[in-house]
C-alpha cells in the first residue's frame, strides 16, 4: 500500500483540483504614471507584480465580450444579451461588454485593459482534466508536471528563502505554482484561514509552539518540506490576519473581490510577493446561467477595479499587471 510519505513525494501525474478555467481579461500598467499617493515610490524589492485571476469552471467568453453579430443572437435564442444592454468600448465597435462589467470601462478608457479573445490550444481532447493540466502547466503536450509559474520561480530563484514570493488565493489555484524546488503559499479559503483552537485550550501558546516546531530543519528532506510548510503557513496566517483586520469584516463582496482585496493589501505590505494567483469557482454555470453569470462577472469587475483603486491609493499600481 502507498504510504502517506510515498504519496507526498510523488510528483508525477496530472494533479487536478478544479474545473476548466479561462482568463481573458488582461489589465496591464506598464507605462510610467505619476503616483497619486503623496508618499514616495514603491520600495525597490517590489519590482513587478503579476496577478492572475482564474475563473474556475470555465467562463462563458461569448457572454463576457459579446460580438455585435447576428449569428450570436441566432445561436443563443435565450441567453443572448440584447445589443442595447451591452457596455460599449471606445474603438471596439464590433463587441460590447456584459453589463456587469461596467466597472471595467474606466480601465479600458485609460488604455489599461486589453482583451485577448479565443486563446486555446490545438489537439483538445475535450477532457476537463487534460485542459486544466495544460492550463496550469502551459504545456498542452504534457511535457511538464510543474506549473508555469512554478517553473518561473525555479528559474529565477525569486522564491528562494521566501515562500511568499508566490501566493495562491482560492481553491484550485495552487497547481500553477507547483515547482520542482520553489516553495509557495496556497490558501484555499481566505475566511477559514486561521489557527482555530477550542476555547478550553490556550491558543496563543499552542500556535507559538506550533510555529516553533518548524525549526531546526530536519535532515530528512520530506520532513524538512513539512516543516517549511508549517513555517510558511504560520507566517501567512499571521499576515493575512492583519490583512483582514485592515480591510474590515469578512464576507464583504464575492470571492474574487475578497481575494483581490487581500492581494492589494499584501502588495502594500511589500513582502517580496511577485505573483498572486487568485481563483474563484462557480463559472461552470450550467443552470440559471443568466443570473449566476451576471453575479460572477460583477464580482470580477468589482474585484479588479477595487484592486487597482487600492493600489493607486497606496502608490503601487505602476508595477502591477492583472
Amino acid at each position, binding site marked *: 500500500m502507498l*504510504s*502517506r*510519505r510515498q*504519496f*507526498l*513525494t*510523488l*510528483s*508525477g*501525474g496530472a*494533479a*487536478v*483540483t*478544479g*474545473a476548466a478555467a479561462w482568463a481573458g481579461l488582461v489589465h496591464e500598467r506598464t507605462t510610467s504614471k505619476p503616483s497619486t499617493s503623496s508618499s514616495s515610490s514603491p520600495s525597490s524589492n517590489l519590482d513587478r507584480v503579476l496577478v492572475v485571476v482564474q475563473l474556475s469552471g470555465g467562463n462563458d467568453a461569448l457572454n463576457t465580450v459579446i460580438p455585435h453579430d447576428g449569428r450570436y443572437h441566432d445561436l443563443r435564442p435565450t441567453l443572448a444579451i440584447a445589443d442595447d444592454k451591452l457596455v460599449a468600448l471606445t474603438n471596439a465597435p464590433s463587441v460590447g461588454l456584459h453589463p456587469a462589467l461596467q466597472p471595467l470601462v474606466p480601465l479600458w478608457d485609460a488604455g489599461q485593459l486589453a482583451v485577448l479573445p479565443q486563446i486555446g490550444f490545438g489537439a483538445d481532447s475535450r477532457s*476537463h*482534466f487534460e485542459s486544466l493540466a495544460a492550463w496550469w502547466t502551459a504545456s498542452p503536450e504534457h511535457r511538464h508536471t510543474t506549473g508555469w509559474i512554478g517553473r518561473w520561480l525555479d528559474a529565477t530563484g525569486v522564491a528562494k528563502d521566501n515562500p511568499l514570493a508566490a501566493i495562491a488565493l482560492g481553491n484550485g489555484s495552487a*497547481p500553477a505554482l*507547483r515547482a520542482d524546488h520553489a516553495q509557495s*503559499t*496556497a*490558501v*484555499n*479559503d481566505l475566511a*477559514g*484561514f*486561521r*489557527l*482555530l*483552537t*477550542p476555547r*478550553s*485550550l*490556550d*491558543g496563543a*501558546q*499552542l*500556535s*507559538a*509552539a*506550533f510555529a*516553533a*516546531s*518548524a*525549526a*531546526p*530543519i*530536519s535532515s530528512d528532506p*520530506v*520532513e524538512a*518540506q*513539512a*516543516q517549511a*510548510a*508549517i513555517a*510558511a*503557513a*504560520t507566517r*501567512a*496566517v499571521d499576515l493575512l490576519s492583519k490583512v483582514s483586520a485592515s480591510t474590515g469584516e469578512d464576507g464583504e463582496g464575492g470571492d474574487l473581490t475578497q481575494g483581490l482585496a487581500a492581494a492589494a493589501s499584501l502588495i502594500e505590505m511589500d513582502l517580496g510577493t511577485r505573483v498572486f494567483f487568485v481563483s474563484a469557482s462557480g463559472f461552470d454555470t450550467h443552470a440559471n446561467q443568466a443570473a449566476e453569470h451576471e453575479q460572477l462577472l460583477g464580482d470580477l469587475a468589482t474585484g479588479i477595479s477595487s484592486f487597482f483603486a487600492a493600489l493607486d491609493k497606496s502608490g503601487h499600481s505602476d508595477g502591477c499587471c492583472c
Partner: protein
Amino acid sequence: MVPPNVAGWPLGPVWLGASTVVARYDLAAGVAAATPDGNPALTAATEFDLPALAVALAHPEGFTDATQTALAQVKRDGRLVLALALASPELSLC
C-alpha cells in the same frame, strides 16, 4: 470523504500547502480538546512521557528534536502537548 472531482484526490506536495497545514492544526486542536481523560495518549502527554506518547499515536519512531523542543514549550498542559504532537511534521507524514 468527498473527492474534489471525478479525477479524485491530487498527488504530491499540494498536501503540504498552507491550507492543509492550517486544517491539520485546527483538527489536532479540536481532537485534543475533545479527548476524554484516561485516554492513553492524553495520559502520556500529561506525564510528558514522549516515547509513550509517540507509541500511543502509532509513531513508535519518536519525535524529532525540533518537535521535542516545541513540545517542551507547552509541557504544563497535556492537551496542548497532545495537540502539538498530532499536528507535528512527523505525524503529517508517517
